[in-house]
């Protein structure tokens, strides 16, 4: 009970009390990575608490040198605390007053200096988290363009963003979420552009998260924030590219950084945010438009094409004369619908296997997959060649989807459509597609209709989706973000 009252109150004057508290509650002496260094400066005890591995030893040695030199240069004084504060040669030194803060800061990788007889401590930010250098993200490669990507470190991530937007109104608000993990979460936006209501909603939602820890990073935050339920469609867009995220911030979006996660959440998002790619903006508008259309065709194919073909197999009368050649010429023992499901799930096997296979083995696996399984399945008489062709086309369409999450959601829709066609034929297909469109239109992500700008229709915005417009020509921020300032800067032109 005594311990609890200490933690809420101010720092005790006695260093022994602090050490005792740390030993009992935080595991000093038990956990090998927690440590305390004791110095004597001007005949007073000074304790420095740290966590191994989260702070930079070089900096700490420099700080200690300076502290120890106090004994050589300064006269005895009662104001040891002031002298120590002055001698901590680091730009980021803060005072703390409670035991709680001390524990939090030490466990975050900062060092805390406490002086005998003082009710305050000094925090020095010497954090250096283990992590990697910014690299090009695997999932969003471009032929031309910046090759840096976000890392697992939130400080590096916000820095990469601020490098691109040096605006005075750019805000990164940080907070700690998770009872035990105390993960840093930051929301980024431009104050006079982003919709203040949206910022408020996101802050409120973030603060109301009650959980042990966010070890799975942004995905956990997303589930808490958007209450997705069993809706398979991704409600936020993730990006690992600082240029993509910066472009969205400028459009009035609010982004969420989560420490330990290299992907950043962009909110609010619609379906069409998931089908665009940075590459389109690295090419001329015409080429970008072409690339985008090809991509749209791919995504469209991945959803509707395979069930349509299967429908024609079931009812060959539907085909107009010139297309009558479509459909399997050979007959097999296995019904086509079973073949389709086996082949489609087979592709899913391959995908999962490829994710877990080390690069050195993946070539061999690809060979087995493509040549052996495909060819031999046909030779044995398990599959009709056409099934392999159309499943492969649909599969490639899924992989073409820039948003990995959307690709998988579309795959589920495709399988459901296939099942509907198998049972109800034409009405199944038509009603299935109709329900799919209505479902997309009824989803709301942070109160934004998901299928905007197609449904509800917004002509100018829809044109921008169809045609990748030149950047100098687009003066207007997209209305979906409800930005406070609809015109991009400078607004007077």
């Amino acid at each position, binding site marked *: 009970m005594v311990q609890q009252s200490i933690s809420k109150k101010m720092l005790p004057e006695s260093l022994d009390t602090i050490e005792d508290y740390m030993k009992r509650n935080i595991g000093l002496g038990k956990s090998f990575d927690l440590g305390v260094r004791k110095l004597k400066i001007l005949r007073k005890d000074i304790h420095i608490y740290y966590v191994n591995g989260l702070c930079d030893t070089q900096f700490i040695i420099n700080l200690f040198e300076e502290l120890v030199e106090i004994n050589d240069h300064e006269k005895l004084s009662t104001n040891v605390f002031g002298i120590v504060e002055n001698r901590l040669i680091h730009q980021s030194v803060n005072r703390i007053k409670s035991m709680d803060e001390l524990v939090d800061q030490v466990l975050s990788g900062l060092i805390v200096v406490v002086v005998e007889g003082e009710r305050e401590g000094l925090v020095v930010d010497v954090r250096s988290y283990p992590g990697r250098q910014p690299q090009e993200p695997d999932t969003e490669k471009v032929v031309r363009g910046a090759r840096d990507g976000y890392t697992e470190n939130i400080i590096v991530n916000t820095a990469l963003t601020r490098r691109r937007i040096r605006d005075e109104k750019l805000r990164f608000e940080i907070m700690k979420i998770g009872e035990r993990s105390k993960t840093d979460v930051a929301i980024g936006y431009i104050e006079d552009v982003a919709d203040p*209501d949206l910022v408020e909603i996101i802050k409120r939602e973030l603060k109301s998260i009650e959980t042990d820890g966010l070890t799975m990073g942004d995905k956990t935050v997303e589930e808490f924030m958007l209450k997705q339920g069993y809706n398979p469609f991704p409600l936020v867009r993730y990006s690992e590219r600082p240029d993509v995220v910066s472009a969205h911030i400028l459009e009035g979006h609010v982004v969420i950084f989560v420490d330990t996660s290299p992907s950043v959440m962009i909110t609010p998002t619609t379906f069409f945010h998931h089908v665009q790619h940075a590459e389109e903006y690295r090419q001329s508008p015409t080429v970008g438009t072409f690339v985008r259309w090809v991509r749209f065709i791919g995504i469209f194919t991945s959803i509707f094409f395979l069930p349509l073909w299967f429908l024609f197999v079931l009812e060959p*009368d*539907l*085909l*107009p004369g010139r297309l009558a050649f479509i459909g399997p010429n050979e007959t097999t023992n296995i019904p086509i619908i079973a073949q389709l499901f086996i082949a489609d799930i087979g592709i899913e096997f391959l995908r999962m296997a490829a994710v877990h296979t080390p690069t050195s083995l993946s070539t061999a696996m690809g060979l087995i997959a493509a040549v052996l399984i495909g060819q031999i399945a046909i030779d044995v008489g398990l599959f009709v060649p056409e099934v392999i062709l159309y499943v492969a086309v649909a599969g490639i369409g899924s992989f073409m989807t820039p948003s990995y999450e959307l690709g998988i959601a579309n795959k589920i829709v495709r399988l459901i459509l296939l099942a509907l066609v198998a049972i109800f034929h*034409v*009405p199944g297909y*038509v*009603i299935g*597609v*109709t329900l799919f*469109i*209505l479902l997309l*239109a*009824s989803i709301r992500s942070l109160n934004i*209709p998901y299928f905007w700008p197609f*449904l*509800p*229709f*917004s*002509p*100018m915005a829809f044109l921008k989706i169809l045609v990748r417009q*030149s950047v*100098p*020509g*687009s*003066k*207007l921020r997209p*209305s979906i973000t*409800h930005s406070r300032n*609809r015109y991009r800067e400078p607004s007077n*032109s």
Partner: protein
Amino acid sequence: MVEENNKLEQEHHEKPMSLLGLSVITGLFGGIFWSSIAYLAYVFKFTEIRPNVILEPWTIGDWKVGWLGTIISIIIIGMLSIGVALIYYFTLRKFNRMYIGIGYGLALFLIVFFVLNPIFPGIDPFKELSRNTIVTSICFYVLYGVFIGFSISYEESEIQKSKDSKQKEVRST
């Protein structure tokens, strides 16, 4: 034209659109888009009804069943669709609910297939239509109704919202 071209690309300006303008464009686009898709459905025999039925009440040349007839029909449906959108604009735009759009589409379906049926010899009496045709048509009308209704109602609610927030700002200052 020359002046236009001399203008820097930066100087082109986009303006937000009025709700009435939006309704007209939504109607036109919705009519053309969905009747084009409906034509595709006709090609693949999902439905027996092609857009060309709109030309049937008039006795004009044989071209009305060819590709020219199809394109002209789609454009005419687009024009008629503007009227449909305007009717929605004047009557139902305050209801920002998706099922209102669905209902609007269903109502249109009933009107075309039961009330206006005698005008179009191309559309068989309801009882003689095949099941595929009926299902496909209902789906098209529902999607079309939602497209028109949801778009106009959503924009209207957006306008209301921005008016509200402006009033709030005025009050708070």
